[in-house]
């Protein structure tokens, strides 16, 4: 059989990532609910550091790792190199995230922070080894493979910068102030890891779910080079040159993001399915939200004069527009395009054609996903307004809606995971 479909990864490797990520999202929403005081001040705040790292590691990176183990065989048409390595990575990432969250919340910047940072870097090294050894098996190198492989390298760089900063708390050795490296750490993580990864995976999955064909890959190529060029120049400049060209680098990255948005619009225009399901609707909202940080980067680039208090609020709006904006929205949407299929394949694949079986969409209630999408969208708008206007009551209302979103999401995810465990 001439199969261009590689062996899928075992559910024991993939599903724990979804469980951990869903719980992290709930923890994030609960912490957010009790952190409105931190959202009206400087971004270098123990509560905000905790929230950010629970969001980026426990929620986003964890679910991306799990999804990638399932999707790499789809995108690259080769099997995952090692499931054992993936489980070790899960252990280090999980333990590192919990310890890091504890260290930041209690501001224990000694041993707990050092151990957590080491665990996380070990996780990123193991992930990169697994990714590299998987990718090298592929026979046809694609732009998606470029995006995914490069994102893994940027993830490792982000982790190493974080590790250096963690040790710098106890044993100061870095030349510049902590905030200087924090900007580098945050931007390399956001643009290098999340953005490249999302584009690499999204450029394959979104057209596949829209049933679109013959899309212009040159848009993706330009996007890839613009983002990497902007990020590389920003990194070198930030460490060595110290010029005032940050806005140019930011705009290069932003232009790369917009080219991906154009690619998705092209895919949507060529779609075969007229109306999308709730998961895809949420994913398309996420793509639209990518425009927001591109606009805000002009404000945070320090090229425009403004009072420091407003700039600090703008930084928070900028950060939230990325983490709680397009990254969270895309994960919320794509969960319903991946998890039901993973559960369905493991539970019903062997029965298809022998006895009547339900379809993947029958494994969850789509109406609840619609409610989740509505509460997320309202929560995001209200939270953003609350941060921008520094209004505690808006922050409380926005975080309450996020909590509702998280509760619906966790209920749906664990209902699906429960079905996977049934005999």
């Amino acid at each position, binding site marked *: *059989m*001439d*199969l*261009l*479909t*590689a*062996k*899928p990864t075992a559910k024991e490797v993939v599903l724990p990532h979804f469980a951990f990520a869903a719980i992290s999202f709930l923890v994030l929403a609960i912490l957010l609910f009790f952190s409105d005081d931190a959202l009206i001040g400087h971004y270098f705040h123990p509560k905000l550091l905790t929230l950010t790292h629970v969001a980026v590691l426990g929620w986003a990176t964890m679910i991306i790792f799990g999804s990638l183990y*399932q*999707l790499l*065989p*789809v*995108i*690259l*048409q080769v099997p995952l190199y090692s499931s054992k390595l993936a489980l070790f990575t899960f252990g280090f990432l999980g333990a590192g995230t919990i310890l890091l969250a504890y260290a930041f919340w209690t501001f224990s910047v000694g041993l707990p922070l050092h151990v957590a940072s080491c665990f996380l870097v070990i996780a990123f090294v193991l992930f990169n080894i697994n990714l590299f050894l998987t990718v090298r098996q592929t026979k046809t190198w694609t732009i998606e493979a470029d995006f995914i492989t490069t994102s893994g390298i940027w993830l490792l760089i982000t982790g190493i910068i974080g590790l250096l900063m963690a040790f710098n708390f106890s044993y100061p050795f870095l030349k510049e102030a902590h905030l200087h490296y924090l900007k580098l750490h945050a931007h390399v993580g956001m643009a290098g890891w999340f953005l490249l990864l999302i584009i690499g995976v999204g450029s394959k999955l979104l057209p*596949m*779910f829209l*049933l679109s*064909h013959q899309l*212009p890959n040159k*848009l993706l190529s330009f996007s890839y080079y613009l983002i990497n060029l902007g990020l590389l120049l920003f990194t070198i400049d930030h460490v060595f040159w110290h010029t005032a060209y940050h806005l140019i680098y930011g705009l290069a990255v932003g232009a790369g993001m917009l080219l991906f948005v*154009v690619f998705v619009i*092209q895919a949507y*225009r*060529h*779609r*075969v*399915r*007229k*109306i*999308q*399901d709730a998961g895809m609707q949420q994913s398309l909202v996420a793509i639209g939200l990518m425009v927001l940080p591109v606009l805000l980067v002009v404000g945070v680039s320090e090229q425009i004069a403004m009072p420091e208090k407003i700039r600090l609020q703008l930084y928070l709006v900028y950060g939230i527009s990325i983490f709680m904006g397009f990254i969270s929205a895309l994960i919320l949407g794509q969960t319903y395009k991946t998890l039901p*299929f993973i559960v*369905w*394949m493991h539970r019903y*694949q*062997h029965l*298809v*054609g*022998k006895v009547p079986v339900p*379809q*993947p*969409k029958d494994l969850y209630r789509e109406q609840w996903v619609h409610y989740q999408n509505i509460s997320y969208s309202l929560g995001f708008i209200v939270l953003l307004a609350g941060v921008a206007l520094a209004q505690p009551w808006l922050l409380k209302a926005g975080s309450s809606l996020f909590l509702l979103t998280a509760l619906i999401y966790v209920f749906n995810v664990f209902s699906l995971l429960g079905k996977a465990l049934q005999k």
Partner: protein
Amino acid sequence: MRIMAAEANFGEHIYELLKQVIDPEIGLNIVDLGLVYQVSLSDDKTINISMTLTTPGCPMGQVITGSVTNVLQKHYPDYEIKVELVWIPMWDSDMISEAGQAQLNGGYQPQHRDHGQSLWDRFF
């Protein structure tokens, strides 16, 4: 694209059976989706199915090909079933039958072949 087996009734029956195989993501059977290119019967009691997927690396590829084997094996236990995935011609939405278009979840969006005329298409 449907190239029938020498025994027409046998071929028709195979196509009818294959309509039980649903693409789980799209929610359409693989015959109306246009994935089945050729059905043939060899002298050595082998049923050969030549088919494609909507995209190379489709995550449901193994599920669909496995289902084809299951469905046919159940009705023809004395025959060997061979499923071959082919990529030429590439699947296109034009291959969806009219019945398939009517059943598609979310409705069918006809493809405009005049893309290239608008300002958007000239740029992108």
